[in-house]
């Protein structure tokens, strides 16, 4: 078994106590049981755990910074009190049986800094990163594995990151990063299966266009897939749609490589 395949199999079989889904909705599972959304109590408690998840790769978040980003109150004391209440709420949900004298397992504190301990937490966004990275690594050397890895990543992308925090600027960077990654993954998988499964390729391109209707590669991929299937009128229709969208959104024409696909088709 190759090292990459072994890493893929191990990752798929890994089980962790907590699983967090952030794409298209927010959901937490503890020991396989979905946490009832009512258990979070106040919305700020939920917002705080989502903030920790978003900043999971940042070492040590200062309390003042967290309070400033989530509460933005002029009264520092009030902010500190609200933070304490929300943190207590998170710990109550994630570790309901923890004795008060015992160290918390998931939200670690060091001085005035806090961090989410992710060793025993599976997060869909991290899983996507793993699959995409693996797919990219074996793109040229192990096509079947690349296809599986990209497909797993796409299966996990259920929609935008933390949709209920769409208007909170602290979540924007992660949302944008994952959206671009999803678009690129749709395209990479589409290119890999273009000649063997044109129908699925069209579906993937259409999915990408629902995320961003100006993604020109998705139109091009769809055109090539329709040509493969011998459906020339549909390929021309897609090209015209691409032309219309790019003109409306950017006031520009499609790229020469896109136009060339259709020119080659007409000249046949």
């Amino acid at each position, binding site marked *: 078994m190759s090292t990459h395949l072994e890493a893929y199999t191990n990752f798929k079989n890994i089980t962790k106590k907590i699983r967090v889904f952030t794409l298209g909705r927010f959901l937490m599972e503890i020991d396989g049981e979905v946490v009832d959304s009512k258990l979070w109590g106040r919305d700020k408690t939920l917002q705080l755990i989502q903030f920790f998840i978003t900043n999971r790769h940042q070492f*040590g978040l200062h309390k*003042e910074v967290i309070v400033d980003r989530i509460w*933005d109150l002029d009264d520092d004391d009030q902010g500190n009190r609200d933070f304490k209440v929300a943190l207590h709420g998170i710990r109550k949900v994630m570790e309901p049986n923890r004795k008060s004298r015992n160290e918390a397992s998931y939200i670690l504190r060091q001085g005035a800094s806090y961090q989410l301990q992710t060793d025993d937490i599976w997060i869909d966004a991290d899983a996507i990163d793993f699959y995409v990275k693996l797919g990219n690594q074996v793109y040229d050397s192990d096509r079947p594995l690349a296809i599986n890895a990209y497909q797993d990543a796409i299966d996990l992308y259920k929609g935008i990151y933390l949709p209920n925090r769409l208007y909170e600027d602290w979540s*924007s960077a992660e949302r*944008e990063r994952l959206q671009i990654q999803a678009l690129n993954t749709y395209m990479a998988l589409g290119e890999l299966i273009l000649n063997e499964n044109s129908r699925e390729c069209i579906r993937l391109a259409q999915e990408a266009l629902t995320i961003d209707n*100006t993604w020109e590669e998705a139109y091009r991929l769809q055109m090539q897939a329709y040509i493969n299937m011998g459906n020339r009128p549909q390929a021309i229709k897609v090209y015209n749609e691409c032309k219309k969208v790019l003109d409306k959104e950017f006031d520009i024409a499609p*790229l020469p490589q896109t136009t060339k696909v259709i020119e080659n088709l007409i000249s046949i």
Partner: protein
Amino acid sequence: MKSDNTSSFVIRFTQKIFDDAEGKANIQWRGKISHVQGGDQKSFSEFEDAIAFMQDKLSDLTKASVASKSTEEKEGLLSKSFDIWKKVAKSGPKMVMDVIKDPKGQVSQFQDQISQVGDELSQKIELDDWKMASKSDYKSMMQTMEKMAKDISKLSKKIDKLSKTK
């Protein structure tokens, strides 16, 4: 309360490299700007359009904040707000394009400019450290900058005086 005085924007740039009709390599930039708090977005191929989008959203923000003020005060604040945006509209596109061409160089240039300002800021600022700055750090930075602004103003007056005596 939160976000009444804040507007955030996410700007996405996508580069397209292609051979033009004469076979020469060419590059095109396409952008999409999103207003986080309002959810609106706009595609653009000229950065001026992104500036106009931001200006529009920020004008709305200022208008909402000054709604209760007198007409005279409103006009004054909006005029000041527009003055700032005139400057941004003038220098913003060039700055963004410079950063796109040479991001590391631009950051390094900013850091060098900061380090030249005075002894207090002689150490280069690591951008990552800014993410962790607390409210009190920002307050202290603002105070230092205000003091520097006053010092520069005093210095300018002295230079004016010296120029006149010559």
